């Protein structure tokens, strides 16, 4: 368990970050300038906070009261940087092994073979970094950080220098290494698509302050956090299982806690799990079951919470078996006479589901 409570003044900018992170992927999410990278650097010991503490279990890395500030090389925190930062004078193998002597325990699940296998590096081992593509370089950089067998792995926007196709190559690998090595990963990102696919927990940051922290699905469903969880693109994530593909209509059928859900054909195998993101603005509401509409996904539910959003919008949280957020005009909201506890039908157009986003998890 990583336990963080840090404070730092940088001119007018005040950084206050307090959160915990357990095994799994905790995403620090916020717009650029929110202070995410500063938090990452402080965790790794590359910058020093003014006050506070950083602990991993019982191990104190920083505590201003006790005058403890463990230097970066003794923190057991791996770091994957935005740019790969591979050592140009070492081969891929040399880069991977550079930090491997840090924790030479024998029964550690992270081994050279496991890492090269998972990241697909076996064919690259004797190459020099300057002969690799950007995507390959970033995979080596992830492998290098893994090989130092860190207690906590920090990934600071590791995909931001890559194009969409390369991102989709690497995201499943990140998801897998989380599962296979039981790591605590701190993942810095300003991409909603990345964090909704990868994160278990979320730390929302804005202008140096932590706005909220907790399980990602809970946070995304909190209406008052909409300004920080995507603004116009805010919405819910639903865990689903693929139960069928309709090749003729080019649709895939998913099983959710609220019933069958159709999305444009994805490439997952039947039985595979995926996470889909439904933007609140893509959800329409009806007071009774609409019969003659094109919309395939119709779920009956109850309004759990609602809140006035910006500029004449009303945002609602609806329980349809899973929790779903919706954004409609205040005019419709009042005309339908909705309130907490109202029965309501939710309608989600299949075509609003971005399957390229979910396909990144196809293994």
């Amino acid at each position, binding site marked *: 368990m990583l336990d963080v409570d840090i404070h730092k003044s940088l001119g007018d900018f005040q950084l206050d970050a307090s959160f915990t992170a357990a095994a799994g992927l905790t995403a620090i999410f916020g717009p650029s300038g929110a202070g995410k990278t500063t938090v990452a650097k402080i965790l790794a010991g590359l910058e020093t906070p003014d006050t506070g503490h950083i602990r991993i279990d019982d191990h104190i890395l920083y505590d201003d009261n006790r005058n403890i500030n463990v230097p970066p090389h003794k923190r057991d925190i791996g770091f994957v940087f935005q740019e790969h930062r591979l050592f*140009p004078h070492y081969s891929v193998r040399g880069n991977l092994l550079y930090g491997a002597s840090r924790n030479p325990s024998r029964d550690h699940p992270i081994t050279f073979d496991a890492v090269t296998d998972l990241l697909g590096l076996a064919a690259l081992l004797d190459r020099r970094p300057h002969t690799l593509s950007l995507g390959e370089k970033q995979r080596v950089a992830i492998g290098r950080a893994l090989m130092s067998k860190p207690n906590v792995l920090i990934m600071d926007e590791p995909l931001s220098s890559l194009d969409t196709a390369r991102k989709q190559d690497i995201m499943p690998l990140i998801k897998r290494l989380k599962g296979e090595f039981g790591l605590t990963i701190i993942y810095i990102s300003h991409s909603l698509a990345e964090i909704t696919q990868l994160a278990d927990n979320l730390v929302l940051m804005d202008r140096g302050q932590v706005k909220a922290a907790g399980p990602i699905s809970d946070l995304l469903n909190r209406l008052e956090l909409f300004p920080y969880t995507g603004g116009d693109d805010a919405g819910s994530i639903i865990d689903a299982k693929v139960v069928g593909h309709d090749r003729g209509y080019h649709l895939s059928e998913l099983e959710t806690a609220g019933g069958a859900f159709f999305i444009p054909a994805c490439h997952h195998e039947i039985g595979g799990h995926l996470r889909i993101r439904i933007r609140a603005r893509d959800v329409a509401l009806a007071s009774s079951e609409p019969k003659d509409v094109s919309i395939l996904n119709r779920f009956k539910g109850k309004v759990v919470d609602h809140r006035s959003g910006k500029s004449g919008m009303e945002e609602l949280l609806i329980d349809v078996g899973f929790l779903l957020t919706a954004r409609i005009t205040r005019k419709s909201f009042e005309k339908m006479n909705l309130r907490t506890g109202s029965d309501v039908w939710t309608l989600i157009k299949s075509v609003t589901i971005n399957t390229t986003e979910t396909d990144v998890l196809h293994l």
Partner: protein
Amino acid sequence: MSLSDAEFGVILLSLKVAIWCVAVSLLPAIFMGWLLARREFYGKTILNVVIHLPLVLPPVVVGYLLLVTLGKRGMIGSWLYDSFGISLIFNWKGVVVATAVMAFPLIVRAIRHAIEAVDQNLEVAALTLGKPPWRVFLTITLPLILPGILAGATLGFARALGEFGATITFVANIPGETQTLPLAIYSLLQVPGSSDAVIKLVILSALIAFVAIAFSEWLAHRALRNTGSRA
């Protein structure tokens, strides 16, 4: 072209002095280059000026200052002689000191620029991989500045080979003791009818310089090839 024993001695002495000059300068120059490239401290500008002085002062002035400080009656020189019996005057060690002082700023500059060109992000990455700063320096910084170190060493070697003013002022022109190639050429020029001998030494000087530069280029190329900087 045959060499007399005396000429052979001159060349051997010159090479010995130049190699020793680089050998004694290199480690302090790496430290100084690192200090100037990476550290901010009080008096940095003054240190920088002092190091560069031999580059801008007339060499004769440098030789005179060495004589004043390191001569037998100089502050440091008398202490060296009284305590350890070491005398730098009129022997080859004095030549090494004179050439090293003259070559030092050139070596420091080459190494400093190389260190400034190193991407410090790589060093930070190495720290996060669990290596203490001194290991990071040895495994990341040092290999990456190797071409710069070689360039500095070559410059220093060439400077030592060609040094004249500071040497002749500090340790005089004594055949077999302090007479390096340029000093020997100068002496020969004072003697009428020795132009053949002069030409011989001039050609030898050019040859040594050529081989030294070719060798260092070859080493630097090898070092660069591995990093892909010039792939």
